[in-house]
């Protein structure tokens, strides 16, 4: 397989400037699969920023993708605000209990201090170490779980959904304190030499309506993006599931790049908003990347290229969402190799 001629930083800079590149940028979104690369258990990442960095840097070196994302699970900020997170020995952490079970405790919730609370200091440590080791050649990002999604972890998704109808002001309050945490954490991420990478799973049309997105998610998302822009960083925004009805709003919120989930249509996204934002996506993380064979990955990757390779503001070949931990290495290599073979300009 032809190896890359450019570093990821060189490639993204040239691509952004409209200069020649060796291949399109490619980002299979590797999370806890990194543990497999260095042969440690997923649970070992807890409280160990050095190990997260070691694994993420090793995964980047093994596969040669274009962005490193420091990410273990969606709950780090909610945990830092009091949510209970379960850490299985060798699987991705999950939310065991929201920060509050009684709404009377709402006033007790405080924004997290990223230098002190929960796992946030360790994640920042991981970012600093990764930048230290490979920051000269590849962008390192830190995952930020956006206000509306984080709010759902503070009170529980069912409760938040009902509050939207019964006590909208409480939802706004939860989003506001989540935003304060987000801004503090995003600031710390930028101070660490990284770029915040925004994820907003619950803002999906698979959960709430476009109108509810406008009312409860958009205002806070926009303020978060404004903050990141104010610190001179570009913003990639990932919303899971169906999103076609909110693409316009995501662009209006200021995102520079939309990460399109496999439940949404990449070709449609290109037509709808490709003239205003960069797109990335959307090979199916479980059906293709986890369960498929390399040839299926190759076909899915070519299909994404066909749909969006000429998107006016650019395209990054990516998985539709974070990869499952046990994704076979051969499939991740297959995605990169397909993009390398396609070259630039992309062969048909």
């Amino acid at each position, binding site marked *: 397989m032809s190896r890359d001629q450019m570093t990821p930083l060189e490639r993204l800079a040239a691509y952004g400037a409209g200069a020649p590149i060796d291949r399109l940028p490619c980002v299979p979104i590797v999370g806890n699969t990194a543990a497999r690369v260095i042969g440690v258990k997923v649970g070992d990442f807890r409280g160990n920023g050095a190990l997260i960095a070691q694994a993420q840097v090793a995964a980047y070196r093994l596969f040669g993708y274009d962005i490193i994302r420091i990410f273990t699970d969606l709950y780090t900020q909610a945990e830092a605000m009091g949510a209970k997170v379960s850490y299985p020995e060798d*699987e991705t952490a999950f939310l065991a209990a929201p920060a509050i079970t009684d709404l009377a405790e709402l006033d007790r919730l405080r924004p997290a201090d990223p230098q002190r609370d929960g796992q946030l200091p360790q994640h920042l440590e991981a970012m600093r170490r990764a930048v230290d080791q490979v920051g000269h050649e590849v962008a390192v990002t830190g995952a930020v779980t956006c206000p509306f999604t984080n709010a759902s972890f503070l009170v529980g*998704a069912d409760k938040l959904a*009902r509050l939207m109808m019964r006590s909208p002001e409480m939802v706004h309050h939860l989003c506001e304190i989540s935003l304060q945490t987000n801004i503090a954490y995003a600031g710390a991420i930028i101070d660490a030499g990284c770029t915040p990478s925004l994820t907003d799973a619950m803002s999906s049309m698979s959960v709430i309506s476009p109108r509810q997105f406008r009312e409860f998610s958009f205002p806070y998302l926009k303020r978060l993006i404004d903050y990141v822009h104010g610190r001179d960083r570009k913003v990639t925004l990932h919303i899971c599931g169906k999103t076609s009805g909110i693409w316009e709003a995501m662009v209006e919120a200021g995102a520079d790049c939309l990460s399109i989930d496999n439940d949404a249509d990449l070709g449609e996204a290109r037509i709808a908003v490709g003239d205003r934002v960069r797109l990335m996506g959307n090979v199916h993380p479980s059906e293709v990347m986890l*369960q498929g064979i390399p040839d299926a990955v190759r076909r899915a990757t070519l299909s994404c290229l066909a749909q969006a390779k000429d998107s006016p503001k650019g395209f990054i070949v990516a998985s539709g969402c974070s990869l499952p931990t046990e994704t076979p290495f051969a499939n991740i290599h297959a995605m990169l190799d397909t993009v390398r073979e396609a070259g630039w300009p992309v062969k048909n």
Partner: protein
Amino acid sequence: MGQIDNELFKRLSDAVVDMDEDEAIAAANEVVERGIDAYQAIEKGLSAGMERAGQFFDEEEYFIPELLMCSDAMYAGMDVLKPHLRSDGAAEKHKVVIGVVEGDTHDIGKNLVKIMLETSGFDVTDLGRDIPPARFVETAKEIGANIIALSTLMTTTMDGMGAVVRQLSEEGIRDRFKVIVGGGPISQGFADRIGADGYAVNAADAIRLARALVAPAEAAA
């Protein structure tokens, strides 16, 4: 059936669609006061309303918050009507064991499927979330379930679904139960691979699937 009955059924149905708990309770109380059959009021009123809400969900008129509110109204009306059900009124219901597999606590999807199954006349035993494979099997045997419904939102917990099917096979009771699976990372391909009987992409689809799976048994009875 009288006009008043039908009007009350419509009020119950509308109360569910309009997410109006108070109205559901008021209409249900009137059903009781007038001595109208509670089973019919649930069937033609509350359940019919929930079915309409499900259609709105399919059509992206309603989303998860609306469906939850509709179900709150349905259950509020149900609480009033249930004590007045004549035990011989209803036919024997098909039984479903449902839960989120071990390692996952996302249960919004599972809750919706449960609500819609109950609405459609299934007798649902909800094990909750983070449930080990063996408990699904034990409970299914215990209550004589027709269907075991497994949900997960996380790729990390998908294996638990295969474990349920394997355990059923190992115990030689695989053909006694239909196993259905659903959730974010699940696909028809995955369902086929683990040997499940069906996959549903959303709550409405899960109802169609469950009905189809119990239909042959009904024809034979």
